[in-house]
């Protein structure tokens, strides 16, 4: 079946080949090559690449619902952040009594704000399996409930986009509240270790990088499996002519619901891998602008290609890293200009450009 999945997917083949290559080379170049060698890849780069990969997974999740199902979600950042928070809570519990106040029961920010006991929703997060389950369950259930209401009411188009935005906005405001018990504006930070591995050691970072690469590859293959199956053809049918699909007997709501939920779970996993690599999760991740940015990555890379989404996420984020360092005062001009130019001259994104070249060759 795997063969069928990647059959005729030149972009995907190249992407997975490059990903495999990077996943093998980067750890070697980081750990085995001495630091003063020009071939050495610094831990900074490793962490950066790991972060980009989680963004890539997030972009794949968005591309699945936008490119193949026609749902423009302006709230996928919410699922990403929820996955991140679930992981963050696990990491907070791992600190144990090594916090600055040395309190074995409560995370620092709770001691700080005079909480007397651990809120009920924090229980269980000291176990990795539970946290890992929550990473998928919390975004999944939210997406399911939200989708169940919304798709059955046949909310479509911009209305759907705007209420997904309302969802993430409401969550952002809620998580900003210190009463919520998630650390308010500061969020969760000062993590120490994950499954017993010190988060600051190079080996752990490499491990997280590899985990992210595997997650991206897995996510890519899973999405690819979906879009090449009959299910994928149904989703494209829904995207192109929703009511026609209904008239030939498909329960459009259910298709939308399950694919949307799956996409939210992927986003949650991406968030969970993101948090230990950047070392902080805070309500800013829920900000509607972040979610819009994800859509922008997908559009830049090329909608409905999956590998295009990956390309877009990597390119825009690398551009951001590079430009904020090189031209801190003017990088927004460059980034904004890039968005405008891509829209105007590359309607199918960068993947579209590659594909066109390919077909004309």
């Amino acid at each position: 079946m795997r063969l069928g999945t990647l059959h005729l997917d030149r972009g995907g083949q190249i992407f997975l080949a490059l990903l495999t290559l990077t996943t093998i080379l980067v750890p070697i170049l980081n750990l085995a090559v001495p630091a003063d060698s020009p071939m050495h890849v610094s831990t900074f780069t490793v962490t950066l690449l790991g972060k980009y990969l989680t963004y890539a997974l997030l972009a794949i999740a968005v591309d699945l619902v936008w490119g193949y199902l026609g749902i423009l979600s302006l709230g996928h950042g919410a699922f990403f952040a929820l996955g991140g928070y679930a992981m963050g809570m696990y990491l907070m519990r791992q600190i144990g009594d090594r916090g600055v106040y040395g309190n074995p029961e409560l995370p620092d920010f709770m001691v700080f704000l005079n909480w007397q006991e651990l809120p009920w929703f924090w229980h269980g997060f000291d176990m990795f399996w539970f946290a890992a389950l929550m990473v998928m369950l919390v975004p999944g259930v939210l997406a399911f409930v939200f989708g169940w209401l919304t798709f059955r009411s046949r909310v479509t188009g911009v209305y759907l986009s705007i209420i997904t935005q309302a969802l993430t906005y409401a969550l952002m405001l809620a998580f900003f509240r210190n009463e919520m018990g998630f650390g308010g504006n500061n969020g969760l930070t000062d993590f120490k270790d994950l499954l017993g591995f010190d988060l600051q050691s190079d080996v752990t970072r490499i491990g997280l990088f590899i985990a992210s690469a595997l997650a991206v590859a897995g996510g890519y293959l899973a999405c690819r499996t979906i879009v090449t199956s009959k299910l994928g053809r149904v989703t494209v049918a829904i995207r192109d002519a929703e009511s026609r699909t209904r008239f030939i007997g498909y329960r459009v709501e259910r298709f939308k619901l399950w694919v949307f939920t799956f996409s939210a779970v992927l986003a949650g996993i991406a968030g969970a891998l993101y948090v230990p690599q950047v070392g902080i999760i805070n309500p800013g991740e829920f900000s509607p602008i972040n979610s819009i940015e994800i859509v922008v990555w997908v559009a830049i890379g090329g909608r409905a290609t999956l590998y295009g989404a990956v390309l877009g996420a990597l390119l825009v984020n690398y551009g951001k890293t590079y430009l904020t360092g090189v031209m801190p005062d003017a990088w927004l001009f460059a980034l904004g200009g890039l968005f405008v130019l891509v829209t105007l001259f590359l309607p199918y994104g960068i993947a579209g450009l590659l594909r066109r070249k390919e077909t004309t060759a």
Partner: protein
Amino acid sequence: MTKTRFMASAAALTAALSLGMSSLASAADTIKVGILHSLSGTMAISETTLKDTMLMLIDEQNKKGGLLGKQLEPVVVDPASNWPLFAEKARELLEKDKVAAVFGCWTSVSRKSVLPVFEELNGLLFYPVQYEGEESSKNVFYTGAAPNQQAIPAVDYLMNDLGVKRWVLAGTDYVYPRTTNKILEAYLKAKGVADADIMINYTPFGHSDWQSIVSDIKKFGSAGKKTAVVSTINGDANVPFYKELGNQGISSEDIPVVAFSVGEEELSGIDTKPLVGHLAAWNYFMSVDTPENESFIDTWHTFIKNDDRVTNDPMEAHYIGFNLWVKAVEKAGSTDTDKVAAAIIGLETPNLTGGKAVMLKNHHITKPVLIGEIQDDGQFAVVSETDAEVPGDAWSDFLPGSKDITADWTPPISCGNYNSVTKTCSGQNY
């Protein structure tokens, strides 16, 4: 396009990516100084000025011949008011650019975000903004005010000089106002203020519709006792807040507001009419009349080429922090983090208000506390001032969780969170 050419261009792209990221060998004849302030996004309003201040200080130092015979070279990056990006940029500065010290951050969350990076890579961060305390890191030097250097003296002034009996603690809902208000609440209660005479209110960031809250404050203030507002409202939300106060007819004589986040820079963006007479507590005001301050303002005006630009408290904090770092490097004869960190403790440098700033063992500094009234030209008139500099207290005595904790970075303790009862040091990351 053939397959090989396609593969080739893909490979070239990857190569370009990795080339851009791999560290370039840094020139050895300069000392690099990192500047980590947001130049875009929501915090650019406040932080851009600090970037310029740092560029000016470095420029001045270079005119004096640099440091250890080398020129200083600023490395400016833009973390874009995005907290995870702060951590990434901090790592970039330390690992890629190999800067000797970083001056930066404004919000608490940005500092929390970069803290693990500085501890892991053993860098130096000078943090110039007043904050909630409850922290002392081996790698961070806090040149802004701790709560005991701002909030408590301000409340003392209101209580003793203005006879305030009823208190509104209004703040933006994040950790600095929360902590400050917790401390103040405990302090006020210790002074015999009843629960019913304290009103606490939190609003979200950038809150712009203050009608209901100001109306509540007005009602709270009409109970026949002198009332004051202690405001930890952050940045942007202040303008509509003060405008609403003015519009609802609350003058500074009726209900004075003392703010901890409103300085000259913020006032320069406001029509100050409705604010006249309200108070602010800082460790520096532009209006303070000392030769050091005059020359600082002149240098600033020349550097920024605009005589209308104001100076403010965090700028002074950078001025102090930078001078202390320069002295420490000179004393240590090296920019090595551990040597500088050891050398800097106990060093002193003149501040801009005629006193001295001393770097304490807990990585905080001594500061005078000034209470100023806002004038209609956007400046502050000092109405009260502490007798001597107040040493910064990393751990508040008024919070139950931290009253036993102290910070001391000199041997034998060498710990930021030392519990003086259990004699243990917890939560260290290095």
